């Protein structure tokens, strides 16, 4: 079993037995094929990138490798031995560990308790703390074992995640979208320790990502997935962003928005900042929305918003940049009337709005595209028409009774205006794709001619075409005189459309730049909390 395999298998001709060999992996969920005859070969001492858009099947493939999902067909060989992996404990026994994007740490528990989770045998806090110390020293990942995970920053939480994975000394490590919640600085640090894990200790590493520059800069070879299939695999050296992006999307990538969505704002693109497609608005214009000294204190005394002051003027797009978890959600909730203020005021159209009173923001002309579409944007089991009038039924009702004909007319008009792909006004919301669901939300929010449009993570989970459409709509809204507030954790998206950027850190606005004074380095520093 341990005899070297000849060059007919594996990518590298001189490679010994691959650490992992996946062949013909197929997984179906109902009619959807998440993985279709996928093969993957991993070698020790190398970083293998898996690149693909959301929904390309990367996550499913990794869940199969880690034992969270059982494949319908295909085989898994670890160090040349065929095996079936039923759960993460079994994967750990085979030497496979995963650093999860999220979902793996429990905020209410301490660092050491989290690290100990999933082990077997007697619980020995002292031994766990000591092991954490050893790993901290070895990789330079300093952490306080008795800190509560919920109190840590995203970067530190990821550190815990890595320690949790490395403590079992896995020979194969999967990093799943590791930089999605990190500042650029933290990302750089991460890749440094990642390189060390690979070269100094001869492990096989998988880097799952949808960011091209990340894959280009840190992997040895790359597999590209699209719609559940492997479309290309090649050594990273000698390829470039354009080739990878084309393979990933399946057509020529030319539009700026698309590249932004894919994370291809590489250094050579920086010169392109300077055209957001929307003119900057003079600071003397009366703001459509004005937030003054807003403070929201959450559970446990945490300041979700801390003396936040922000203006949005008609016709401008204000981008709120920042690492996730720095008050973006609270800001969105505030403008959706979901939370009330402990101190501060919100003024719209010159009048103060009662924060936290249900519907008050919406009546004041503030429309919101909420962060989580399924959670608070649409009701999946109701029809498209019903979803279109969820916020305001006045136009289709009389004395509280809905006029079915008027509802239908209104829905048909919206479906046409916003080009919503669906079977008709009566189609249930769940039958629509994510992009079309988002169009329903957009149509509904814009239907009442709002003065302010708040878009919270409006392109999350959407494909390239849908992102392009959303960005264009935001521009159109601004052009028609709506003040747009774009809250996004995708910096590229903000750079692309915002006329003014404010940076949020720990619930405060820590910096502000007009579009013409944008400076990526300063932005990065501000996002990381450094005074700049």
């Amino acid at each position, binding site marked *: 079993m341990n005899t070297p395999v000849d060059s007919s298998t594996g990518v590298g001709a001189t490679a010994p037995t691959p650490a992992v060999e996946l062949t013909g992996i197929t997984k179906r969920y109902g009619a959807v094929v998440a993985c279709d005859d996928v093969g993957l070969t991993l070698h020790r001492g190398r970083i293998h990138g898996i690149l693909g858009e959301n929904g390309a099947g990367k996550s499913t493939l990794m869940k199969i490798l880690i034992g*969270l*999902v059982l494949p319908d067909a295909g085989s898994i060989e670890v160090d040349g031995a065929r095996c079936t992996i039923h*759960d*993460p*404990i079994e994967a*750990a026994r085979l030497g496979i560990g995963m650093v*999860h994007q999220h*979902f*793996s*740490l*429990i*905020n*209410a*528990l301490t660092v050491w*308790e989290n690290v*100990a*989770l*999933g*082990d*077997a*045998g*007697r*619980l020995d806090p002292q031994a766990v703390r000591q092991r954490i110390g050893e790993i901290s020293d070895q990789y330079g990942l300093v952490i306080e074992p008795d800190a509560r995970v919920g109190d840590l920053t995203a970067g530190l939480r990821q550190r815990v995640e890595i320690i*949790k994975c490395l403590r079992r000394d896995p020979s194969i490590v999967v990093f799943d979208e590791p930089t999605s919640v990190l500042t650029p600085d933290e990302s750089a640090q991460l890749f440094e320790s990642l390189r060390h894990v690979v070269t100094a200790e001869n492990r096989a590493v998988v880097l799952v990502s949808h960011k091209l520059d990340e894959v280009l800069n840190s992997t040895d070879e790359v597999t590209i997935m699209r719609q559940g299939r492997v479309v290309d695999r090649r050594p990273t050296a000698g390829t470039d962003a354009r080739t990878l992006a084309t393979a990933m999307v399946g057509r020529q990538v030319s539009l700026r928005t698309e590249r932004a969505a894919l994370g291809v704002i590489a250094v050579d693109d920086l010169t392109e900042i300077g055209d957001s497609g929307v003119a900057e608005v003079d600071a003397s214009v009366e703001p459509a929305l004005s937030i003054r000294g807003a403070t929201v204190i959450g*559970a*446990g005394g945490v300041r979700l918003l801390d003396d936040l002051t922000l203006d949005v003027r008609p016709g401008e797009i204000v981008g709120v940049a920042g690492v996730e978890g720095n008050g973006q959600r609270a800001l969105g909730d505030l403008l959706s009337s979901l939370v009330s203020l402990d101190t501060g005021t919100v003024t719209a159209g010159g009048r103060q709005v009662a924060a936290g009173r249900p519907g008050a923001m919406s009546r004041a002309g503030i429309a919101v595209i909420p962060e989580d579409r399924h959670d608070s944007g649409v009701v999946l089991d109701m029809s498209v028409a019903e979803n279109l009038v969820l916020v305001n039924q006045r136009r289709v009702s009389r004395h509280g009774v809905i006029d079915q004909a008027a509802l239908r007319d209104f829905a048909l008009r919206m479906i046409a205006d916003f080009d919503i792909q669906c079977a008709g006004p009566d189609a249930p919301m769940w039958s629509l794709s994510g992009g079309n669901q988002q169009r329903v939300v957009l149509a509904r929010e814009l239907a009442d001619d709002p003065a302010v449009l708040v878009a919270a993570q409006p392109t999350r989970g959407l494909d390239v075409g849908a992102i392009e459409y959303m960005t264009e709509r935001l521009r159109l809204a601004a052009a028609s005189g709506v003040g747009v507030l774009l809250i996004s954790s995708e910096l590229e998206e903000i750079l692309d459309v915002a006329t003014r950027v404010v940076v949020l850190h720990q619930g405060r606005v820590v910096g502000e730049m007009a579009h013409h004074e944008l400076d990526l380095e300063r932005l990065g520093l501000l996002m990381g909390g450094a005074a700049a």
Partner: protein
Amino acid sequence: MLDLFRAIGEIFTAESTYINGALFAGLLIFAATGEWVAERAGTLNISVEGMLLAGAFTSAVAYDQTSSVALGLLAGVVGGMIVAGVQAEMSHRLAADQFVVGLTLNILVFGLTGFLDREIAPATKIASTFDVPLLSDLPLIGQALFGQPWPFYLLYPLLPFSWWLMYRTRWGLEVRAVGEDPQPADVSGIKVNLRRRQSIYYAGMTSGLGGAFLIFVQVGRFEDSIVGGRGFIAIAAVIFGGWTLWGTVGGCVVFAGALSFRLSVQGLGYQLNSEMLQSLPFVVTLVGMAIFAHRVRPPGALARPFVRGLT
């Protein structure tokens, strides 16, 4: 007014107030300790009422058949765990709604034990009293805490054991993890619903003991109103205690104090509207909940079912 103060003074200096208080608190603590474990694992286990009643009935029948208090206690555990089994398998294997299951179980156990009680009519009595040397001679609380029928003393090891189980063992860590956030627990390789079922069985065990406690320590004979809503007071005590063990015990003591106060008022011959007195413990519970319920943080996944693969 002076009379009122004198009456209250008399109540607080009467040994019987403390003895009754300890009895009420004992029952609540047996039920609430298990309930606490189940809730920390993510189940708002309302069938604790049924577990108490089932435990009381099975222990009474076992004593009737064997004349052994020890076997009666054991049978109480079995009775509580039978109810726990239905609750656990239905809500954390078949993913049925835990409230519907719990509510149905409470009604079912009430009807079933009432019917069987008439058929079997088990004869039982209070277990023999054991005075702990020296400690039982303490003024006021000596008899209350150390001069009780012997099954009372099971409380003393139960509390530290439950604490140790939850905070010093891997099982306890995993139970707390699945109650806070089952998704990462699952990703870490913990069998979420297994841990949740086991924690309900633990609640069944302690509540079954609580039922036997009613028979052998507090009341002496089975009747279908023997529990009378105190399972729900135990649930309130867990919330009141902010989902910590010692807070829960504190909640039990406060609520038991109200129950005992009611009894003492009547026992000492004071005239007060008895319906109002009956409701006192529940009013105290409501007030306690109103004050404390929003100040504490429940386990993150309390009352949320977990189905694997849904992310």
